[in-house]
């Protein structure tokens, strides 16, 4: 059953149509990857789902409840959580406090401290808890933000390019982390360029191209689809 249902959603900015008539449903419990060349509208779609943009047309459902008009915080309280494309951690605050802010609604006291430690260790940031988040490397900031998103224990985790700026090993570890959370029942929707990563985590894939759904299906099917490879590599002229 679908946890997220995007129905006929479009978004226009001035003369630009970033997302056009998109239908997308993400099933509960799956890891769903959204791929497509740069500028396909993936990040915009994410922002529409979490409520940072109001859609120009269409409606969005979460857990069968319409949330099109809800503010972002209310959607987060319903159980979604996002890591943005560019790392958006609280740069002037220490790493540990970043995690704390994400955790404090769910846990308190010793439990919270324990969870904090666990997350920091999980994110390879155990030694950097006192550093200002802004002083971390790009990749570390990505992790920190993933950690903040995870700290909410969401039903649905949205990750926008989680591995940009990471080494292959780090990317792999990130993938395993996501899989482990998925195994515990978390639904994940990922935007990613890195095909190795997609292979590692994806159960279903949707391809977005020029603001429209281009193809969808299992990873194998998508990878074998010649047309997908072509648009992804910019080869299609068939328009």
């Amino acid at each position, binding site marked *: 059953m679908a946890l997220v249902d995007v129905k006929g959603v479009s978004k226009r900015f001035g003369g630009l149509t970033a997302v056009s008539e998109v239908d997308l449903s993400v099933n509960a419990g799956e890891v769903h990857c959204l791929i497509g060349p740069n500028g396909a509208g993936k990040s915009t779609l994410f922002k529409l789902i979490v409520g940072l943009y109001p859609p120009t047309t269409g409606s969005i459902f979460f857990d069968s409840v319409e949330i099109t008009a809800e503010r*972002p*915080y209310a959607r987060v309280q319903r159980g979604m959580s996002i890591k943005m494309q560019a790392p958006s951690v609280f740069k002037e605050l220490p790493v540990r406090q970043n995690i*704390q802010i994400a955790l404090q609604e769910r846990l308190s006291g010793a439990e919270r401290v324990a969870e904090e430690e666990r997350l920091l260790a999980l994110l390879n940031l155990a030694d950097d808890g006192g550093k200002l988040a802004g*002083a971390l490397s790009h990749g570390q900031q990505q992790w920190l933000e993933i950690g903040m998103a995870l700290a909410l224990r969401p039903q649905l985790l949205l990750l926008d390019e989680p591995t940009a700026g990471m080494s292959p090993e780090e990317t792999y570890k990130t993938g395993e982390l996501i899989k482990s959370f998925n195994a515990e029942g978390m639904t994940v929707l990922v935007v990613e360029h890195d095909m190795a990563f997609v292979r590692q985590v994806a159960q279903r894939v949707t391809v977005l191209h020029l603001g429209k759904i281009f193809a969808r299906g299992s990873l194998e099917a998508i990878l074998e689809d010649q047309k997908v490879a072509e648009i992804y590599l910019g080869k299609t002229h068939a328009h």
Partner: protein
Amino acid sequence: MLKLLDGPQTLGRGRIFWSCFLAVLAGALIYPVFADSYDVGNFAYFLIWIFMALGLCLMWGYGGMLSFGQTFFFGIAGYGYGVLAINMGGGTATIAALVLSVVIAMIAAGILGYFMIWGGISGIFFGIVTLSATLVLAFFLGQTAGPEWHIGPARLNGFNGMKGMDPLTVGDFDIEGSALYYVMIALIVIVYIALRMLVNSSVGNVIVATRENPQRAEMLGYDVRKYQLLTFVIGSGLAGLSGALYTSWGQFITPSSIGLPAAAMPIVWVAFSGRNDLTATLVGSFLLLFGFQTITVYSQQAALVLMGVLLLATVMLAPQGFVLGIGKLVVDWWSRRRRRDEGPALADAGRLQSDET
């Protein structure tokens, strides 16, 4: 609970800081024994203003909301105290008048804050709306000279100001001079400690997170507007506390305490001191109030020039604020002495903002 006293949001922690704090407090407590009674009263007078500075520090430094109209709430509570104290009669009722007038200021802040924060007003526009509000109040009160402007027996009395209210009184004992000084010290300590605990608590976490990146904070499930409103109401309540105390101190308040020059003062104090830290604001505001008074007494006409130079020099040489700048120097020096190898990660070398979308 006490753990909240020390936290990432406040500079100065650990035994050394608190020893200094206690030493200063002890010094402040025995000060009247040695000092001239005038100086004690004068110090108490400086302390009156510090609540407004602390409130603005919370709103601006921690919450990222620069209000240019803290005097709006100062005025509401100041006049509120006068009206209530006159209407409720003197004596112990003045204490109730003080509390009520602060509550009224907080209600006003709740209304204005809801109007602004839910309307998505931020940055400089936030400043202009609050400034407009305070100017409207000042203009309005300025033209209430006629006898028809009264609330009960309390006449607003226009530009010449409202007077005739009792000072804070318990029974027959007027809280003035040294007594006022001790009340002020007690209130300052309570407010300072309470604010420290607030900013280091989970609520404080959300307040600073909202300042840093409101979108991210909202994406963690916080309705940031509620936290902003809370910050605004607390900060404004403290401005109100200053206002009510000011009226009680001089048994007098005029619209010029609400107008433009008065409105700029709290910003100057906080910016000078270092808006990012409560301790710096506390110390800096006191020093600045003391300094401005001293300059005015001794340099006569050059006073305003010197104040201008002081401000200009502060922003140009110590952009984080004068006291905070010095405080950080001291802290850095200490930590360098103690752990020579662990460099503080505060210095960000000329970060260039990315201009990409």
